[in-house]
Each structure stands twice: as C-alpha cells, then as structure tokens.
C-alpha cells in the first residue's frame, strides 16, 4: 500500500490572527516557552524531577508546573533563585562576557527591560540569528 503523507492545509483564519499579533508579542511568547524549556531541561540534567526541584526551592509542585507551562512571567529574583539551584545561567548583566561556545537562553520580562540594563540574548541553533534586547525595551536583530 502506498503511504501518502498528509496534505498541507493553509488556514486563512490562522493567518489572519498571525497578521494581527504584534511581532514583539510573538517574540515574548516564544521566549517564555524557550525559557521554560531551558529550565525543564536543566532539571532533567541535574537528575531531578519536578518534585525535587520544588522541594529545593520550597515551592509546591503545582507552582513548578505553572513555571514550566511556558505562560509564566518570572521575576528576576525567581530566575536568580532558579539559576543558583540548577547551576545554570538565565539572566546575564551587560558587563558579563558570554563564551561563544555555550548556548544560553536569557529572558527578562518586558517590565524589567524598561527598568534595568540587561542584555537579552537567545541563540537559536539552526538559523544563527541572535535577538538582543538592550534596556528600555528596544529590540535589535543581528546575525
């Protein structure tokens, strides 16, 4: 029996929604989910499960589930706590040097970028595009 792949379907309804969403909002959603993924991977790398991670931070497992859902707005304080418990970098200040050989995901909420001078850099594996937020909510894209 010939095995056919599913046919591709273009959704006008979905495209209309994508067209009305601001590009910066798409980026924010993407970054939240990448951040959650980074934390989830680091928990596994440490040989922990969500319960262990919750206990280390004195949080309920249900709160950890919310953190990892990709919808949560982290405060800087929480990100730094997570960094220390998992031994990873999530927030980098402008003056730190980033080794080129390591992959980082950095995130700060849009609220924070208007108040603090943090570099937000996300290295994407395949396209080698680097997104950078530099203080005051400004965004630049560069290769």
């Amino acid at each position, binding site marked *: 029996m010939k095995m056919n*792949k599913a046919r591709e379907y273009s959704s006008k309804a979905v495209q209309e929604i994508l067209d009305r969403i601001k590009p910066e909002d798409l980026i924010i959603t993407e970054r939240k989910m990448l951040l959650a993924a980074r934390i989830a991977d680091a928990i596994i790398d440490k040989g922990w499960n969500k319960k262990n991670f919750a206990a280390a931070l004195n949080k309920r497992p249900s709160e950890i589930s919310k953190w990892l859902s990709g919808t949560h707005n982290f405060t800087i304080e929480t990100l730094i706590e997570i960094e220390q418990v998992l031994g990873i970098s999530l927030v980098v200040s402008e003056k730190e040097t980033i080794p080129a050989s390591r992959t980082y995901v950095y995130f700060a909420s849009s609220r924070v970028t208007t108040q603090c001078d943090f570099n937000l850099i996300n290295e994407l594996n395949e396209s080698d595009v680097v997104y950078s937020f530099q203080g005051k909510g400004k965004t630049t894209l560069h290769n």
Partner: protein
Amino acid sequence: MKFELVKITELSGSKASLYTIINTETGITLFDSFVLKYNYTFISELDEIVSRLRAIGKNVGAREEFFRFFEGAPGDGVCALSIKPGDKLRLYCIRYGALILILGSGGQKKVRTLQEDPYLKKENYFLRNLSAEISMRIREKEILFTDDGMDFTGNLIFTFNENE
C-alpha cells in the same frame, strides 16, 4: 461524515508538525471552527493560543510541560494546551511526543468538570475517538510515522457518525 488529517502550514515548522482534521464535506477544520467561534469574544486569549502553537511548531516542539493531561482516556495522548491563570479558552489536542500535535477544538471553560459541560465534553470525546482510531491504524500499520518522526503517512481519512 468523512474527515481527513491535514497539516497546518502556518503553524508547522522544524520543531513540530501541527495537524488538524478537516470535514471533507464542509471543508472546515476543527481548529478553524474553534478560531472562528471565539475570534471576536476571546481575541487576546486566541492570539496567545496561536502564538504558543506557532512557537511549538517553529521553536520549541510540543513539550509535555506545555500541556495539561488527564483530559482523555489514560494514555490516549488527549490533552489541553496550558493556559494562563484566569484564561477561559481550552483547546484540546492529541500529542504524539514532542514532534506531532493534532489540534482539535475546544471551548470556554465555565464549570469545574468536563462531564458538567456538554459542549466541551462533545469536543473532548471526538478527539478521544479520533485518538483511538489512529492508535488502531498504527497497530495495523495503516498509519506510519515518517523516518524523522515529524509526520504521519498512510490512511488518513476517517469516517465518524455525527454524534461521535
């Protein structure tokens, strides 16, 4: 009624393939019907859902943490896309690992349990039936995954009664 599994081009990417099911008679997909129904009443929630789905396809994959489980029968993959506290729209999906997601429909969560909401229950149970049928076809080798695990191949046409 006949339905066909189709791949949504706007949402699929290098990290995951996002499918939905199209009614071959009406030409409307389950996911489009969900979008069209709530497009004017839940604009910001719908924007968030579509943004998240796009990120799943293009950037992060259908990771388990992004979904709420125990929405279907045990082990059938039926789940709901996680939403922010306070959001009301629930989208049911079938997840096949991090690489394939079938988008169903859903609705506004008004009551505590699925059984108390006839509309949500109907949408949820349709996906459970679809999941069961796909599982059977996988066992019978009528449906296979591509070598990279990103797509379905095979018999992707389904027949369901209107009330299923």
